[in-house]
C-alpha cells in the first residue's frame, strides 16, 4: 500500500490513511526520506488522524522517521493523533519522545513553519 506524499511549495504533506503492515510502514519511512531529499523540502507534516492503532513497532517507525528527517536537515511534525491512540501509547510506556507533534493538520503546518524559521 503506497502512501501519497504531496509537495506544497517548500514542504511535504502526507497522511497515513490505511492500516499499515510492518513492511508498508518501512516502505513509507523510506519514501518519506527519498521525497525529502528529492524535493529538497524544508520539512514534512505526517498526519495520523486516520490511524486507530499505533503499536510499539509503528511508534518506533514514526519516532525514527522524524529523527531521520531531522538528520537529513529538514523538520518533521506528526499531527492528528487520536485520543485513544495517545492513551494506549502512554499506557504502554511508548510515548513519541523527541518528536514534534500537533493536534491537527492546520496546527501541524503552523508548527512546521515555526521550526523551519527557527532553523534558518
Amino acid at each position, binding site marked *: 500500500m503506497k502512501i501519497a506524499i504531496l509537495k506544497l511549495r517548500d514542504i511535504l504533506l502526507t497522511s497515513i490513511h490505511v492500516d499499515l503492515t510492518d513492511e508498508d510502514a518501512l516502505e513509507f519511512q523510506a519514501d518519506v526520506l527519498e521525497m525529502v531529499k528529492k524535493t529538497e523540502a524544508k520539512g514534512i507534516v505526517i498526519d495520523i488522524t486516520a490511524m*486507530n*492503532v*499505533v503499536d*510499539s513497532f509503528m511508534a518506533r517507525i514514526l519516532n525514527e522517521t522524524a529523527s531521520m528527517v531531522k538528520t537529513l536537515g529538514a523538520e518533521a511534525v506528526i499531527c492528528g493523533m487520536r485520543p485513544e491512540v495517545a*492513551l494506549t501509547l502512554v499506557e*504502554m510506556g511508548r510515548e513519541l519522545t523527541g518528536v514534534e507533534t500537533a493536534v491537527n493538520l492546520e496546527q501541524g503546518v503552523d508548527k512546521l513553519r515555526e521550526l523551519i524559521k527557527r532553523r534558518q
Partner: protein
Amino acid sequence: MNEKAVKIEDSRDVVRARHEGREMARKLGFGPADQARLATAISELTRNVIQYAGKGVCVITDASEMGIAKIRVRVEDHGPGIADIDQAIEPGFSTGNGLGAGLPGTRRLVHEFRIDSKPGHTVVSIAIVRRRA
C-alpha cells in the same frame, strides 16, 4: 459463542487479527479506548509470534456473561517458547531486536494477562472486560 480464529503467518495477518479484535470490541459496545487497547495488544502479541515462532494462531472469543461484556484473546504458537517468563514481562526486556518487545506494555493494556510457555508451545491469553449498563 462468537469466535474468530486468524492464522498468523505474515505481517498482513497481524493487521487482520487486530482488525477482528477491534470489530468485536466495537460490536460488544466497548468504547474507542478499549477498542484501541485490544487492537494494540493483539498487534503486539501476534507480531511476537511472527518474530519468535514464525507462525501461530490468534483466537478472539466473545466470552461475555450476564451483565459483563468480555473478549478473550488466545495467541498460540509452537516456537521455541519463553525461557524466563518473569524476565519477559519486565519492562525494557527483549531478546529480539526490539521489534516486538511488547509484553510488559501489552500487559498494561488489558484486564487479564496470562502466559503459559514451554519449549514448542506458548500460549498468551488476554481479556478485556466491561460492565454492561
